[in-house]
């Protein structure tokens, strides 16, 4: 628990008052899926993250909110080292992934290993130009799973988990582009789920979708969280409030406040958080 508290201290220049709510201690001790410690990140000379520390609770939804350019997507993309595709990036600090305590951002850890452990869904639905089935099976093939019945079973399981099985079960061999935007995004979620990731990253997954498709994905996250740990970046404060158990508020590359969502939205410890969640800035 002390670790939890340490991870949740403020990093802004506001007061250093620990705001971790007592509520979490009264529940059964929540397991930690990943622990971010003093994470710093640079794009070339520009420092985008100034030492972020926060826990990611196992099988809970953790939301990252903040104004544009605050570093919330940058933080999320550290978790599967997508930054490594571009030259001139640098990490410092740790993201320890349970249970093996692999530091995801360590130099000695191959980004491919990280991506095999951590799944990601992007802002814009981006299915591969292949069939629905092949899209979901892609991650399995990469992991060397080629047994036909196993692949078929896991594709169906992932599509069911992503609440899209009933809509696509009769046309698994049709191109994924025939699906609507919302269906494509759920397909991408299924694709990320099929390999059973230790952590699922969602980068503003509903910002390109209409309200009905958004509602479906929010509903889906609610059911997913029984099995999967979810870290989501969202622009939409109402969405963060609806779906997440924990929320991190970021500003200018700093983690301003981290806490239980209810607490952070109703009784934030930092004025800056309050201003943001009440719409006074951002």
């Amino acid at each position, binding site marked *: 628990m002390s670790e939890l508290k340490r991870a949740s201290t403020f990093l802004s220049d506001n007061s250093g008052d620990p705001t971790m709510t007592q509520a979490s201690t009264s529940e059964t001790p929540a397991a930690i899926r990943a622990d971010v410690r003093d994470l710093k990140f640079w794009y070339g000379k520009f420092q985008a993250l100034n030492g972020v520390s926060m826990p990611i609770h196992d099988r809970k939804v953790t939301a990252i909110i903040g104004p544009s350019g605050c570093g919330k997507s940058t933080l999320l993309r550290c978790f599967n080292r997508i930054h490594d595709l571009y030259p001139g990036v640098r990490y410092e600090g740790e993201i320890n992934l349970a249970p093996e305590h692999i530091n995801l951002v360590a130099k000695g850890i191959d980004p*491919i290993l990280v991506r095999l452990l951590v799944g990601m869904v*992007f802002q814009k639905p981006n299915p*591969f*130009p292949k069939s629905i089935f092949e899209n979901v099976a*892609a991650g399995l093939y990469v992991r060397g799973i080629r047994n036909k019945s196993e692949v078929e079973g896991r594709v169906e399981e992932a599509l069911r988990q992503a609440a899209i099985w009933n809509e696509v079960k009769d046309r698994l061999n049709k191109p994924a582009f025939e699906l609507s935007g919302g269906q494509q995004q759920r397909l991408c979620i299924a694709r990320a789920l099929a390999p059973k990731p230790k952590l699922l990253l969602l980068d503003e997954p509903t910002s390109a979708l209409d309200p009905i498709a958004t509602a479906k994905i929010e509903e889906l996250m609610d059911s997913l969280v029984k099995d999967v740990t979810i870290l989501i970046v969202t622009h939409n404060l109402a969405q963060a409030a609806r779906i997440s158990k924990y929320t991190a508020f970021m500003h200018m590359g700093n983690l301003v406040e981290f806490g239980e969502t209810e607490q952070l939205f109703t009784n934030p410890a930092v004025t800056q958080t309050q201003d943001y969640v009440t719409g006074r800035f951002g």
Partner: protein
Amino acid sequence: MAGELNERRIVATSKAQDLVFAVLGIIVLFFAMAMLATLVADLLIDGLSRIDMQFLTDFPSRRPSQAGILSAWVGTTLVMFVTALLAIPLGVGAGLYLEEYAPKNWLSDLIEINVSNLAGVPSIIYGLLALGFFVYGLGMGQTVLVGGMVLALLILPIVVVATREAVRAVPSGLRESAYGLGCNRWQVVWSYVLPSARPGILTGAIVGLSRAIGETAPIITIGALTFIAFLPPSPIQASPPFLNFDWLNSPFTVMPIQMFNWTSRPQAGFHENAAATGVLLLGMTLVMNGFAIFLRYHLRKGLRS
């Protein structure tokens, strides 16, 4: 009231400007198209009547009416085959490496500039290189293989540049989501980048081949013959191993050379022959480009994004 009138005046000016540019554009287009049409029409008038089976199945002759382009079109086909086989894999491989694998530093910048410059080097320079290096240096002689190699060198930069552009146009979201699944670089390139870039790469390859098919200077420079009254050995034979590669080492001629040779003769009959060859060469280029358009259309259907 004055304001409204002023705005009407702005609209009128805009329309006038559009009209001026449209008229100018039509005039320019007309000139370009008229030139091309004249050229093609001239070829067709002179040559069309000369194209028949005899013309396609006879060897060159001293008598214009008995001369044909059998050795030329067979030579062109074989040389283009070698060129495509060499230039496409090498060019696509180099383009993929430069775009997906090579670190972005001064060396790759230098290579990029040089590849682009190579595309503009006069084709006769390639001919001289091939003459000095392949024909004399390596003692390969004036063969189909050398002809294919020099044309492959000539269009390699075109294929490399087209590949790089096609690869660069692959949306980064596709790449990120493939990497995000845990794919390694080869899996991303082979399974996702290459299929998406294929229409662009194919277009570049065929544009390159269309250029190669009409090239005369490098082929003349390596010393290809202008009068060939035999065919290279057939690539397919009845007895095992069924494939025969002797044709690679055979002397050859190509259609542009045959044309060049005939135009330099005094007899009017040979000029007709040259025009007919030109028509056929144009036809071949047109078919290749049509094939490229067909492939692009066909491949893009599955790639809508």
